[in-house]
């Protein structure tokens, strides 16, 4: 009844093409941004930041990155963990080599370095497709982790191969290092997540995104109508790796503060992010957020429910958690193979007709 286009007149093509054409959606979006920027930083405590919101935002960035590559451009990648490691180790090297430069610059540079590495590993995509490309990116995953373990220069010759994030500030506020306050951590990740999601949304509905989707849907047809597969595929790899690199840099510098390549950026991480976009919905920015929320928040929620509220043994709860999350993944994929984003879209369509569906 309220949720509908009627009465919301668009007088220009620009208005007509906007992301949220329905007024209620638009208001909801602004309200969400308002709460996220103006309310949450004042009420957030370190548990909410470190265990819930910061990982959620970081994984959302990584999921958007992978979604650009896999969801929009159709190139399957299992190298996400390795590319996140590139971001993390780049930011570490930059932070320790140039302590005077603002950390935001380092994080962006880390993304740029990852973009270059991603393009390099994206080269095989010009010759191979599908499962074969997945194997090539798997090689990137193992090679990069091996490299960061093997060459001591990457971890500044520390005895244990661990990298530690020293304290760096933005406008006098610590955003990395142990003294970082919860709002600073949260806001840093939020700024990156919002800006990157905005960029991704606008890229994917512009010419670049259309080229990616053309390649995804049928590469030969795309080539015939004039899409250059070389630039389309490599730009998808570059943009995707840029996002994933920033997620890795934030994961190491803001969230964890210390990391080692094989533990923090192993193959499990690649699968985790891939599951996020499959559950969230391929080719959807909202889906990236929904998938990240599902896989980051649900385990924490279940743990708190079973262990803290119900007092069950921790091992039993941990096993049940795996079973429940696994079961829910199967359930969602059976009910809606196109992910949470599709469920959300269906809900909105139903809402438009409500309460007179016929």
């Amino acid at each position, binding site marked *: 009844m309220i949720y509908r286009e009627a009465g919301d007149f668009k007088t220009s093509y620009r208005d007509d093409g906007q992301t949220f054409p329905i007024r209620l959606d638009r208001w909801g979006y602004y309200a969400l941004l308002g709460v996220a920027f103006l309310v949450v930083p004042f009420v957030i405590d370190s548990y909410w930041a470190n265990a819930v919101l910061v990982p959620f935002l970081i994984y959302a960035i990584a999921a958007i990155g992978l979604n650009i590559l896999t969801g929009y451009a159709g190139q399957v990648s299992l190298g996400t963990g390795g590319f996140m490691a590139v971001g993390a180790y780049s930011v570490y090297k930059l932070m320790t080599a140039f302590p005077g430069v603002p950390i935001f610059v380092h994080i962006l540079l880390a993304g740029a370095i990852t973009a270059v590495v991603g393009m390099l590993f994206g080269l095989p995509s010009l010759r191979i497709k599908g499962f074969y490309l997945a194997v090539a990116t798997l090689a990137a995953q193992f090679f990069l982790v091996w490299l960061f373990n093997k060459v001591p220069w990457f971890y500044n010759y520390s005895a244990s*191969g661990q990298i*530690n994030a020293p304290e760096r500030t933005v406008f006098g506020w610590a955003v990395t290092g142990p003294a970082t306050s919860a709002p600073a951590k949260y806001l840093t990740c939020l700024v990156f997540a919002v800006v990157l999601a905005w960029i991704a949304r606008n890229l994917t509905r512009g010419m670049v995104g259309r080229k990616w989707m053309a390649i995804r849907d049928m590469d030969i047809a795309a080539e015939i109508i004039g899409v250059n597969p070389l630039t389309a595929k490599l730009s998808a790899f570059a943009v995707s790796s840029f996002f994933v690199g920033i997620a890795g840099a934030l994961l190491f510098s803001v969230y964890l503060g210390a990391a080692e390549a094989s533990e923090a950026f192993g193959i499990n991480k690649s699968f985790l992010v891939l599951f996020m976009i499959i559950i969230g919905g391929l080719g959807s920015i909202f889906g990236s957020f929904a998938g990240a929320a599902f896989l980051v928040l649900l385990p924490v929620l279940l743990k708190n429910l079973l262990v803290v509220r119900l007092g069950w043994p921790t091992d039993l709860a941990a096993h049940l958690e795996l079973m429940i999350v696994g079961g829910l993944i199967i359930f969602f994929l059976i009910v809606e193979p196109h992910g949470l984003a599709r469920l959300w879209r269906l809900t909105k369509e139903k809402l438009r007709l409500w309460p007179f569906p016929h």
Partner: protein
Amino acid sequence: MKLKLATVALGAILAAAPAMADLVVPNLSYRTGPYGANGTQYADGFNDYFTLLNERDGGIGGEKIQTPECETAYNTEKGVECYEATKGSGALVYNPLSTGITYQLIPKVSADKIVLYTPGYGRTSAKNGSVFEWVFNAPANYWDGASVAVKYLLDQSGGDLKGKKVALVYHNSAYGKEPIRTLQDLSKKHGFTLTELPIDPPGQEQKSQWLQIRRDKPDYVLMWGWGVMNQTAIQEAANIRFPMENFIGVWWSGSEVDVLPVGAAAHGYKSLTFNGVGTDYPVYADMKKFVIEPGKASQGGQFVGSALYSRGMYAAVVIAEAIKKAQELAGTPAINATQLRDGFEALGITPARLTEIGLPDFGPEIKMSCDNHGGSGMARIQQWDANAKKWSLITEFTEPDQEVLNPLIAADSEAFAKEFNITPRC
């Protein structure tokens, strides 16, 4: 309305545990995953000793001890979540049993002013208390272990290791890489050649490394392994018929779960240790009476007396003694984490005190101070008897080679102090 209720419920569920009144010693354990078989025994020993103190003595100095458990699965992200979830409850000291999580927590506990006790694991240079104010790693650390192992090898080969070949099989992580620097220095000092063989975690796949060992024929193999990696390595060593008495693991590679799956072939395997094993200690009479028989033992007490159970219990003993010392110094039973740090720094556990607790000769003597957070570093060697299915201690407590270790510790802790702008306090 429904949505609102759901939001409120969600908020309540996601929020951390409420504050508690007693002395809180969170147990960041892991009972699942590839390291679960080892972690679960350690956690049981840790829990049971505090249960014993609560049941028999009414806690420490009249204050009950709570050990809220949180499952980390040896995963650093879950470890951070557990730390954040429990630190608000007045946590005094953490013992995460993971070198990765320890590295994660060292800067955090220093900012939050909570003690981190990492017996036999964690960051070795945390021994230097003037840089690492909140971290303690007594009674021994990895470099002590490496040095004691090499001393034992020296003994075995008649005081001379020149021209001998030693291979190090290690978990390719911060944990496994820790001893490399020390072993390199020791190899220069004693003239043996060191081969480093990394094994990627979790470590079920190590055929190629053992093929290399079979080809190179090293005189001794040292192992820094954990979880499933241990039993796989011992099985592979048995497969290539490597003499078990020349195969020495660090203390984390010396528990029943590591050798039992290999059966008779594991006979003679050796490992370092810094605590006693088995139930032949007087404390187990009380343990049986107050904890096991009333059914209060963690997981029903199925692992009582095992190597890792004993080590978990030993960690609890040291923490309990430090709490007691802190209560004496502070003059109040309800201590906070800062007072506990003082208690740790003033801690001295003599053999007489260990006997009093009911654990004679269970661990080395511990004497800590402001600049020494690592104790004496003494360790001993135990050997597996596959027929009797038990570990037997084959050496006395041995001092590590401090002449080699001290410069390394100074260098590594200085690097950390520089990185984090810490001025040494004592």
